């Protein structure tokens, strides 16, 4: 009894199947049509799939269920008597009459259903398929859409390196083709770019990358070379191809050449390699004035915010801070390296760093200045590139500095410290001895004592250069007594005794040029000297022999002073002379020292000096041949040759080949800076050279490129050809008579 329903289900399935078939046929037709147009199986498949999905969505053949089937059968099979619906209902729920009818229908359908087919458009679809097939095939044969073909297929072919036979006569020889070509770029490790494999022969990579070319040929070949910027590198043979590894240092061009079995040489087009530079890091300091000023009472802190970026990774960054103290000659610098608040993780391409610089922590005082800048390194190998920011300044203002100024009202400046020289002392002593009979004893003693003081001052002056501790201890105590009379030493006793004589005029100020009070101050500077000579570094002003000499001179001065103080200038005089002699020697030895490093003149022939004889002097001759530097000679030649080839259509000869090869080399040098710009011209030149582009239009493009690549003509004087006309000459001669 169920067989009726079975038939219905079968019919339904057939209906669905036909629906699917119809959709498939349409999609196949359109897909094949697309394939014929584009000549690309991929395109065909894509179009087929898309259309299939689209049509399925529109038609949804699965939607035919038993209900729609039964209503269809009711409408088309009279014998079904609109009762097929009964077949779908369970038998038990039907009335008897209905069961009878159901049986009848089921019986009828068994025979009838085989005769009718579900509604379909398969025929129509097949027609469309055939038509599209025919039209597509026809169009494909016509080649109307070959452009489309090129567009879609071009992504495979041009990347492959093509070769052209150098020897144009043997065109019939087999042209080996590249079956597989792999170019892999190994970027330097620090860039973290790893490896990249490409088929495109124009390579762009970071400087110091390693580039591998791996070429496989379909025919056996030999002598494969890479030509790069005028140099040839052989390719190594590996199991099934050839390989070469090159390190990328600078931009340029390359091509391959090889020989086939018959020894015919082939060469490829020219391709560019562009070296992308690894730029040093970029540092930006945010929101900070170049100059920052602080008052003493301010909180002396600087908020430094900066961002550092690099194209491949930052290795290190820090702040270099320099503190300058003092001014003028006594300025001192202290340099410190400060780290940022954040720790720097190596290899990051962008960093945002901050730092609080506390001027107090840097032990800066009033008037001190701080200069700082940021230094950052990237990870470039072999040498890291470094970048520096601008220098920023921070100054703690010093408001109490006073400046020296000479004012008009103070006409007299304080007298500078000065000493009588030993020679003056001798002269004065001799004068004193001479004057002795004519002057009073008081006067004599006073002057003698005064000379003694000057002798002391002189001794002290030389003593300071000694820096000798034993001498030094004596000197300050002396002076201090002379001024204030506080200390009591064996030497000062003398002074104390002499005090009444020397009260007013002891000191430098013997001529009373300034008020007596100031004579006290006048000695003040000696304190400075003494202080300074505490520094042991400065005590060794002289070499050892000089030191002993000086010490000797000082002790002699002591004796000289002693006798002056004892009012015995006659006895003092020999000591003074000895001291003078020693001082002269010391001075001279210093001079000799200067002398030694100076110019050492050649010995003068006294007999020929100033005679004016030049008989032994000869004329001087020099011959030099300077190579004329013409870096673009071949390019110039190539341009004029091209003009001939274009204008006169002369025949290309072997000599031209050399010119164009040479011009290519010259242009390549020019093009290193900018490989992309001249690649076309270089390829054109290569094509002219290897006889694949000897056409007028190529000549013109190459000539245009060469012309624009040539630099400006240099201005050089030179002779011109002219015809000298008799009449003109006569005219010029006549002109002169009127001058």
């Amino acid at each position, binding site marked *: 009894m169920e067989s009726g329903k079975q038939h219905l289900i079968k019919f339904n399935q057939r209906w669905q199947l036909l629906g699917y078939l119809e959709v498939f046929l349409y999609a196949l037709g359109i897909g094949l049509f697309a394939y014929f147009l584009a000549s690309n199986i991929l395109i065909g498949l894509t179009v087929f799939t898309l259309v299939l999905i689209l049509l399925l969505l529109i038609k949804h053949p699965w939607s035919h269920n038993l209900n729609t089937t039964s209503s269809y059968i009711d409408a088309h099979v009279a014998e079904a008597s609109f009762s097929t619906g009964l077949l779908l209902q369970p038998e038990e729920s039907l009335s008897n009459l209905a069961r009878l009818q159901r049986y009848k229908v089921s019986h009828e359908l068994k025979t009838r259903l085989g005769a009718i087919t579900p509604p379909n458009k398969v025929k129509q679809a097949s027609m469309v398929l055939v038509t599209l097939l025919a039209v597509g095939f026809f169009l494909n044969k016509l080649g109307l859409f070959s452009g489309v073909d090129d567009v879609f297929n071009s992504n495979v072919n041009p990347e492959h390196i093509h070769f052209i036979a150098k020897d144009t006569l043997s065109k019939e020889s087999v042209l080996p083709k590249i079956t597989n070509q792999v170019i892999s770029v190994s970027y330097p490790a620090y860039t973290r770019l790893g490896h990249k494999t490409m088929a495109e022969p124009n390579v762009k990579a970071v400087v110091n990358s390693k580039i591998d070319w791996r070429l496989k040929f379909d025919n056996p070949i030999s002598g494969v070379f890479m030509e790069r910027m005028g140099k040839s590198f052989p390719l190594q043979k590996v199991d099934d191809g050839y390989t070469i590894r090159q390190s990328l240092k600078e931009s340029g061009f390359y091509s391959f050449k090889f020989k086939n079995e018959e020894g015919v040489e082939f060469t490829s087009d020219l391709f560019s390699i562009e070296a992308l530079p690894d730029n040093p890091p970029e540092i930006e300091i945010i929101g900070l004035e170049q100059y920052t000023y602080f008052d003493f009472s301010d909180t002396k802190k600087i908020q430094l915010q900066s961002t550092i970026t690099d194209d491949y990774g930052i290795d290190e960054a820090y702040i270099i801070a320099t503190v300058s103290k003092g001014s003028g000659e006594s300025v001192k610098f202290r340099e410190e390296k400060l780290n940022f608040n954040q720790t720097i993780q190596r290899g990051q391409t962008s960093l945002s760093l901050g730092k609080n610089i506390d001027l107090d922590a840097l032990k800066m005082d009033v008037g001190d200045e701080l200069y700082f800048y940021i230094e950052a390194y990237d990870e470039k190998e072999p040498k890291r590139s470094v970048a520096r920011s601008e220098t920023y300044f921070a100054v703690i203002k010093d408001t109490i500095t006073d400046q020296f100024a000479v004012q008009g009202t103070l006409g007299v400046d304080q007298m500078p410290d000065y000493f009588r020289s030993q020679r003056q002392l001798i002269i004065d002593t001799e004068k004193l001895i001479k004057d002795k009979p004519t002057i009073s004893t008081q006067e004599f003693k006073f002057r003698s004592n005064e000379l003694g003081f000057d002798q002391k001052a002189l001794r002290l002056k030389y003593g300071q250069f000694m820096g000798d501790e034993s001498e030094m201890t004596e000197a300050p105590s002396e002076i201090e007594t002379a001024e204030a009379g506080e200390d009591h030493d064996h030497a000062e006793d003398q002074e104390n005794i002499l005090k009444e004589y020397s009260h007013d005029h002891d000191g430098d100020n013997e001529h009373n040029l300034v008020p007596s009070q100031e004579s006290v101050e006048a000695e003040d500077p000696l304190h400075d000297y003494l202080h300074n000579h505490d520094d042991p570094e400065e005590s060794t002003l002289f070499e050892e022999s000089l030191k002993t000499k000086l010490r000797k001179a000082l002790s002699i001065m002591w004796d000289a002073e002693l006798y002056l103080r004892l009012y015995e200038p006659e006895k003092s005089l020999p000591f003074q002379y000895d001291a003078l002699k020693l001082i002269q020697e010391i001075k001279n030895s210093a001079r000799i020292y200067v002398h030694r490093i100076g110019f050492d003149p050649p010995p003068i022939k006294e007999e020929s000096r100033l005679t004016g004889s*030049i008989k032994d*002097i*000869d*004329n*001087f*001759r*020099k*011959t*030099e*041949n*300077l190579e*004329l*530097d013409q870096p673009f000679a071949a390019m*110039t030649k190539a*341009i*004029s040759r091209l*003009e001939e080839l274009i*204008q*006169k259509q002369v025949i290309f000869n072997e000599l031209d080949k050399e010119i164009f090869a040479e011009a290519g080399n010259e242009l390549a040098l020019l093009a290193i800076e900018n490989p992309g710009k001249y690649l076309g011209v270089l390829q054109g030149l290569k094509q002219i050279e290897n006889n694949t582009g000897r056409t007028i239009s190529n000549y*013109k493009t190459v*000539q*245009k490129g060469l*012309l*624009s690549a*040539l*630099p*400006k*003509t*240099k*201005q*050089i*004087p*030179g*002779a*011109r*050809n*002219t*015809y*000298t*006309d*008799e*009449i003109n*000459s006569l005219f*010029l*001669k006549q*002109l*002169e008579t*009127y*001058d």
Partner: protein
Amino acid sequence: MIDGFSFVHNVVLIPVFIGALVLFAIYLYKEWVNKSRGSFALNAIVAFVTIAAVVLLVLEPTKEVEVDDQKGLLLTDGYSEQQKDSLVSLNKGIKVLNYDSGIAIRNELDSLTSIYVIGQGVPSYDFSLFNDLAVEYIPIENPLGINRLSYANQITLGEKVQVNGSYNHPIKGAFLVFEDSRGNGLDSLQFVENGNTDFSLSGTPKTSGTYVYQLIIKDSVGVLLDTNPLPIEIKEKKPLRVLILNNFPTFETKYLKNFLAEEGHEVIVRSQFTKGKFKFEYFNTSSLPVNQFTDAVLNQFDLIISDADTYFSFGVSIKNRFEKNIQESGLGVFIQPSEFLFDLHESSSYFKFKRDAKDEIQLPNSAITLEKYPYDFDEQFLVQPILKWDGPCIAAYKQMGLGRVATTTILNSYQLLLNGSDETYENYWTQILDAIIKKNNVALEWKAVTHIPLVDEPFDIDLYTNLKEFSIVNEDGGLVPTVQKPMISNKYSGTVYPKKKGWNTLKINTDSASRFSYYVYDDMDWKSLRTTETIAVNQKRFKNTVNKNRTVMIDRPISPILCYILFLVGIGWLWLSPKLITDK
């Protein structure tokens, strides 16, 4: 022929006469045989007259007649129909001729007493047609486009090509672009006004050879409107042989000598370092002692550079030798200035200076200032400035015979090099030295008289040479006839008719080096310029033409009716007379 008479068919005169004589002879013979019938003489006369009438009918006799009012109208390219119509309606019986260079109009012109020419006019090579005709030329307006152009079509490498001209009514916003032979732009300008605009474009060629540069007009969006060729022949300069004489070595000389030697010139430097002792430096040349300044030594050099102290301390005989070489063989001398030069009197120093109290000068178009002596060149006959801008002249030369002597007021030009302005330094010296360098003598000089030659139109050339025996050969090996000018024995002129567009060459058969390249333009090139020029030459040519109408003699055919009558009567008598006799 008899005065005033002629025949239309002069060509067949003799055969016709012979035929007539034969016919007459046969008739006489026939009459002689039948003499008995009488009246032989009468018949012979009648027959003679009849045959003569036939002869005249065949030959069509003409008679010269004086005509003094036969006007013509010549239509040339660009004429306006309106103008033509009004002229035709004003002058009854005017003969309208169409000017076409391919068709001869000489015969038509011969019959005219005066002619109007309208349109752009006739090309100058056809002016001879109008030699004794009263011509009234009514010009058209100048065409739009470039109507004046001047540029040097022969330059030396390193020189600038300067294209000057004017454009009649350019489109506002259009560009005029000067391009090299392959379309690299060299210079351009945009028109901002509509009237007649003058333009000046320039560019420096980079290589030597013959090239066709282009002057292109584009509209404001870059659409090409017109392109015109500018053929240029660029020659290379020849290296020099220079002698430098110095009293003592100076930096100025050092840098100048380096500059010259590095560019491949042969340079010999002689600088004195003590009395009678010299330092000789030879660059790019073999060492040759330069102690004596004989004519032979001086003649070797194209240029002598000497400091004033050296040059003006030469003895009279040496100085005369220098001057002789300057004047006669065109030697160039450059005197490096010093205070000494400015203190000299004009008569001995060649130059006259005036104090200007300026110690430095600013070079044009740059921020560079150069030290100079506080003098300026005073105006002098024969002294020409070399470097002169708005300010004082800083270098000048004096023409002395064929040669030139130059000097400058610049103190230390090498400062330019030290400042890094090498280009300015090179320009400075190139300009000065180029002005005075001895010229290489060549045997002949070509000059194109026609400046826009076209295919199949006459191209006139002048040739200056002292050669006595030579002939000009064109590209196909054909000889070009030349005419020597009677007064100027070294000037020859000739005419060629170019056969192809583009570069053509002429050469002298005895001297393969003396080639002359000329460019033959396309009919479409420089249309407006050619038209403007044709209008101008026509206006000039026909301005002072004979205003009085000439009288022309025309051969008018004599009416043949008389001959017909004579023939009819004669033949009738001859037919009738035998009949009358037999009837007797």
